[in-house]
């Protein structure tokens, strides 16, 4: 979108609200945070994210930040990465974490689930080839265990192997010894985490009031 207006101008927000499903108040709060993070610039860059102190001790920080700059998450069916994002894309990425509304049909719930799982999938599939290979999965587990030092690296490999094996067993059932399982496609991923009920877990609370006064 164009230049970001002040909070009282709802004309811009109507569009955004429609696109992302946030309410005006929530968009206002997030906008304020955006400006705070970007030091009142128009766009956010990666180093702005790196400045957030709380994020520093997060083991998967790189992936989280990467997700914001990943065009696959912008719901525009495009690919690749960008170097800086504006408020609209920021909001679109955030909207993946909006809780689903109370009354949904089965199909709608399925769509929500798909969307959230798609976000996770994109986070794992770093080379954007549509599958999560063993290497990529190993990387994920390594990052999770990265705080345990070199201790974690070896077990990470075997954990990732075991996990991959599980996926293959669930998705493929029977495989001949010389068949090769290329990687987890999105459909397999969806099937794998079907029972996980991600639509009720992958949410955070977006308050209507500004509660960010204390945090940086």
């Amino acid at each position, binding site marked *: 979108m164009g230049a970001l207006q002040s909070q009282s101008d709802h004309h811009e927000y109507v569009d955004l609200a429609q696109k992302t499903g946030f309410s005006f108040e929530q968009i206002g709060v*997030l906008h304020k945070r955006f400006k*705070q*993070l970007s030091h009142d610039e128009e766009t956010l860059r990666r180093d702005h994210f790196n400045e957030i102190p*709380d994020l520093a001790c*997060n083991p*998967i*920080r790189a992936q*989280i930040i990467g997700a914001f700059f990943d065009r696959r998450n912008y719901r525009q069916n495009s690919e690749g990465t960008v170097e800086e994002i504006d408020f609209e894309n920021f909001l679109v990425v*955030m909207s993946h*974490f909006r809780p689903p509304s*109370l009354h949904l049909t089965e199909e709608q719930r399925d769509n929500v689930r798909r969307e959230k799982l798609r976000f*996770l999938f994109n986070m794992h599939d770093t080379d954007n080839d549509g599958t999560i*290979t*063993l290497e990529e999965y190993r990387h*994920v587990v390594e990052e*999770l*265990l990265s705080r*345990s*030092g*070199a*201790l*974690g*690296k*070896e*077990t990470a*490999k*075997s*954990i990732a*192997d075991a*996990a991959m*094996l*599980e996926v*293959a*067993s*669930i998705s*493929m*059932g*029977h*495989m*001949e*010894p*010389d*068949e*090769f*399982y290329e990687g987890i496609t999105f459909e397999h991923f969806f099937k*794998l*985490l079907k*029972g*996980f009920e*991600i639509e*009720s*877990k*992958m*949410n*955070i*609370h977006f*308050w209507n009031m500004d*509660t*960010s006064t204390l*945090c940086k």
Partner: protein
Amino acid sequence: MAVSPQFVRGSSSAFLTCLLLFTTFVSVSVVAGENNGTWGDRSRVLQVAEKKGEEVADSSVTHHQSNSSEHKKVFPVLSFNYDHVRTPFEISLWILLALLMKLGFHIIPRVSNVVPESCLLIVVGLLVGGIIKAIGEEAPVLDAKLFFLYLLPPIILDAGYFLPIRHFMENMGTILVFAVVGTLWNAFFVGGMMYAVCQIEGAQLGEVDLLSCLLFGSIISAVDPVAVLAVFEEIHINELLHILVFGESLLNDAVTVVLYHLFEEFSHAGTVTIGDALLGVVCFLVVSLGGILVGFFYGILGAFTSRFTSHTRVIEPLFVFLYSYMAYLSAEVFHLSGIMSLIACGVMMRPYVEANISHKSYTTIKYFLKMWSSVSETLIFIFLGVSTVAGPHAWNWTFVVFTVVICLVSRVLGVIGLTYVINKFRIVKLTKKDQFIVAYGGLRGAIAFSLGFLLTNSQMKNMFLTAIITVIFFTVFVQGMTIRPLVELLAVKKKKESKGSINEEIHTQFLDHLLTGIEDICGHYGHHHWKDKLNRFNKTYVKRLLIAGDRSTEPQLISFYNKLEMKQAMMLVESGSAAKLPTVVSSVSVQNIQPKDSTRRRAIPSISKSREQEIRKILRANLQKTRQRLRSYSRHDLMMDPFEDNLSEVRFRKQRVEMERRMSHYLTVPANRQETTPVRKVCFEPEHKVFTYITDGESPKGRTSRPHPSSPDAVSLLYEESQRDNQRSVLRAKGDTELRAKTLDNQEQQEQQEEEQVKLSRCLSDPGPNKDEEGDGSFHS
């Protein structure tokens, strides 16, 4: 059960007859005990009647002496002295009766599907009480002291120790609102309405004043954990609803305690001022927070103690039980909430204790808790039935009917109103179905009865007790019986069968970190942020203090993974019979997922597929043989630590040695763990893979390997499996000093021995590792 129905019916009817005879025997013994002394007064069965025992003994002694003064008595070959063992005898008899009843219900399949166990037990209690009364004796009543000190703690400890923490914490706000505000609302609404009812002319209830009604309301308003557990356990609804109702029943104890004491004090005084009400609020905070603090204190003590129990594994479970019981009793000393203290103690202790204790102790704790809570629950319900028959009743139609109706109404109103408010703050809202189940699941139970029993004002006590019993019966029978078909009818989500998927665990952790990160980016400190902070605090400080050895730094994912592997190994051992390995759904093995890279040269010559099949067949056949052989090994072959799962480990070790002598095609040599003498254990994945782990001789649950903290770059992979094995061999070949420095001597020796064997077998079968090779799985199929 593959038993023919006729047999079952025949046996069950025979069983029932035996049961009936048995109950008669119980009551007769009660009578016999009574009549054995010269004193005619009755006493309660389960009170420790030492005084009476002494009196009776005295009487028989004097009797004896008077006899002997007359003539020399013939030496009694056989004599009957029942008083000597009377109290423990009767206690055991009652418990035995209760358990036989429980056994009986599960033999009769039709009944146990329709009627929840609690109802059946109450009916049995009614029967027994009826028999006792028919004989003319006084039946034992559920003594409040007995209930609160002996029967209730095991159930609460069992619930608290195995509380699903994650769900509990996630819904803590909702649970607290239901427990505190909901119970307050219930108490005041019921009390107020009953007072209004008592003002109705013609009900003969004029003398019941407001405070008594409020007291009554506070007793009857609390949802009972015992009843909820008993009923909800059988219907398997989803975890959210279960934890909501159950959590509420646990946490409302503080409110009940405070309200009860408040109103009881003031029912003597007659009036309540604002100051008193404020003091009541303060008292509530003190009671609940104090109870929790006491529980935490004992929990930390227990966790700390378990850090040092590695040499005395046998008494580990006792520490858990005793510390928890002490927490309960200590809280009761100060009139704090004993239930909350017990829950807090169990919750606090559990993660650290489980990391420290052995697998056998863990199993012992689990089964003892289940056993005690099961016995307690059974006894409680039976006694409830007996007390119903025994107790003095004052039936007042108006009072009782209105109580039941008003309780129901207040519960429904309370839940609906509170949910409306709560849903504004919840991410996952509660639907109407959820609300219905929460309202319908508000069962009353023995706690209400015991509290009513403790009332001192006998004038209204009987009437209150009658009403309480009616409400309990109504909720347990009507609501308990109908909740299962209603759950089916409304298609409420059931508990999902979780098979411990490693993927789900990975994603749970991933999601935790992701959501924390997003919250940080958004800039507000939400639920995830604080949870993350708590976890980090836990990891850096608390775990180091309370967990012994290396386990303190083990990340959660790794412990989960180890647990899973262990479980699979145990499953394979237990499926036991050599003839069939467990049938596997998929034949996917590791080689299917390892990327084949044509640029990497294979280190060992390829084996044709048919040869490979042959080899697999040979290996499997020999596995079966060794398994059969190992069964007959005596205990002397078991090694140092007699308290571990050594049988399977030894079996595995022998098998592994066997396997290594053949093809080392599928083997892995495990990484080592820097503790005392390692024990090797083989874990079999379905069909193809074989893992081998070195486990610490005293590790909890036979924990599996520590991966080796050495540079991963010096790896050249030889086998299908992970690189750990090669690391060790390569490093050993290189004589890595870092490795040596970290291992203990005897461990190293043992490893070296095995290592020679492995090396030997390797040399025999294939050339050594190619040091130019890099990284991950290059192999063939």
